[in-house]
């Protein structure tokens, strides 16, 4: 999620959020130190393994968070920040563009 972890993450098959295409889904991957920015994004719901879908590319980059919040919410990110968020790609845009909320159960 931070610059110095980017090359390492890319070696693991993850790509920066800005390289996703519209409708593509993936899971947030976090390597490296918990900087203030990382802590902020994690508190907003962009935490390890959170499932996201790309809604709008560019400035701003808009993503839909599904796994982390049950009902789903949208987060707008300046391109500069989005470029530092690493994603493990899960689905292609022509496949299913909506992900199920994970961790659900019949409490």
């Amino acid at each position, binding site marked *: 999620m931070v610059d110095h972890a980017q090359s390492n993450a890319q070696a693991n098959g993850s790509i920066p959020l800005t390289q996703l295409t519209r409708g593509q889904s993936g899971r947030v991957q976090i390597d490296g130190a918990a900087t203030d920015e990382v802590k902020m994004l994690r508190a907003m719901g962009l935490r390890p393994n959170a499932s996201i879908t790309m809604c709008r590319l560019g400035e701003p980059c808009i993503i839909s968070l599904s796994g982390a919040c049950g009902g789903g919410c*949208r987060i707008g990110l300046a391109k500069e920040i989005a470029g530092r968020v690493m994603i493990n790609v899960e689905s292609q845009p022509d496949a299913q563009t909506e992900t199920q909320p994970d961790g659900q159960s019949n409490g």
Partner: protein
Amino acid sequence: MPRPKLSRMANPTGELSMSSVDSVQDISNRIIAVLGNPNVGKTTLFNRIAGIRAKTSNFPGTTQDARHAQCCGAMLIDLPGIYSLDLEVSESVVCRQVLDGDLAPTGVEAHVPNAILVVIDATNLMRNMTVVAEAIARRLPMVVAVNMMDLAERQGIHIDLERFGECIGCTVVGCSGKTGEGVDELMQAVESATIPDRSAPTELDAIEAWGDDIYSLVAAARETPVDDRLTDRLDRAFTHPLLGVVTFSVVMTGLFWVIFKLAAIPMDLIDAWFGTLGGWVSGVLPDGPISGLLVDGIIAGIGGTVIFLPQIVLLFFLLALLEGTGYLARASFVIDRVLRPFGMSGHAFVPLLSSHACAIPGIMAARSVPDPKDRLATILVAPFMSCSARIPVYVLLTVILFPDSPGMQAVAFTSCYVIGVLAALFSSLLVRRTILKGPSRPMAMELPSYRLPDLRAAALLTYDRAMMFLRKAGTLIVAISIVLWWLGAYPNTTVSIADTTPEQREVIAAKAQARHSFLGQIGDAIQPVFEPLGYDRQLTIGVLASFAAREVFVSTMAVQVVGSDDAEDDSVLESIANATRDDGTPVFTRATSWSLLVYYILAMLCLPTLVVTAKEAGGWRWAWLQLGWMTLLAYSGALIAYQAVSLLS
């Protein structure tokens, strides 16, 4: 919607409950801190509980809004929305200080809160668990309000509140701030809040795992995904590089058109009403210092304050409605692209735009800028925007400069606005490179769902802002008006001239009074400072009087050159344009007019704005900096304009 279940927890550990804590503390001094993420409906819930009892003040030494209300025998404090207490952003710092007992809103005695009311969003439960864990770690009596239960129901999300309460060891109440469902139960629960009998992890990874576990135990979401194609389309349109800007321009133009158009009606009524009141008082009381103080000091001063109220009320009401739709969050990103190179964020746009009506509500609106440095930069440059009080001066000077060319008048008029904006951008860039060093915080913002705005919340916010304006700025504007009246009215000059009509005598007496009053004497003393800008004694007095409020310039000039302050009259404007100096040369030469125009665009000629800057920025040093910088820029600009135009002609 079924009535939300109320889950009251047993207190097996025998830890202190809120009422037993209170037995050792003054019961009237209890504090309940309301904590939660942004966009969880915390303020709607707070408004539902507090209604018009809510007051807005500042947390001392900060620019954070502090809403609080005396409810249920305790002081309820609505803390700023945060995603986590453990972040180095001003909102989290304020929340930490309040929970540590080191900070409380102005007027409230600071101590560790007697209870925490954590508000979470039923539709975003998992993410909200971070704040719940951090609140549990505080070991204070606490209650969790699961808000937006009605919306969760509609989205097919079910939350087992009883089980949730068991998992976190404290009372959990389901409610809806919007409908009021469950709010009474919530307040009962808060009164008997206990310290959670479970602990929560404190490390980020562990908190997330803990939240996931609880979520999987208590929540069940609908299998079918929510169809948000419409939201997708709207988001793309509203943030589009071109379409987004066009939409934004249309929305904002509409907003300000409505404000200018609608506010004009009550403003005229207020003006007329205070005029009538002044006329009535001066008719009843005999001429003398008491009548003068009441009519020209107090009534004119209060009228001069209240007249801004319709603009402020409309601005905050319409902005609250717009914010409620979810559109403003998208618009912030559009404008962020323009403002970020100059050291301000997209959040600054609404305050800057509002400042075109009046810098006071504009600076007050800067509270919505989350980064403290961005916010300070916004507050410092907001008065460069051409406010409506500058309009009479712009009109006078553009007419003098281009008497027979309405086209050129319009170009000059528009240029005034452009120069103001450019000066603001330049000043922001400078301030962010020097005293407020550091990059502008790139935006990361939750985009709330599109929905119909909440009229009740907008009305309450507006009422709150209006009262705040009247309380804070009102008292000061009145005081300044009284001082200015006194300086202009004393020492009293009597003129006796034979063979003149009563009207002529009045004009001569007014001119003599303007010249020999304290204000006139100050004008004489200070005039050499303005000599390089081409201003004579009369213009200097006009500029000095404008310090209370810019619009005073035209009426002050009218009093000096004509002896009547009825600037609505065309012949009065003409007389000002043709006014002569003591040596018989014209006051308004081409060079002087340009110089004066530049001076009025750039100068900080508004004491009430200065007071609001000091209050909002958290110290008078910012107000002095603003005054110093704007005066320096205005003086230099006017000097260059005067010398350049003199040289060319």
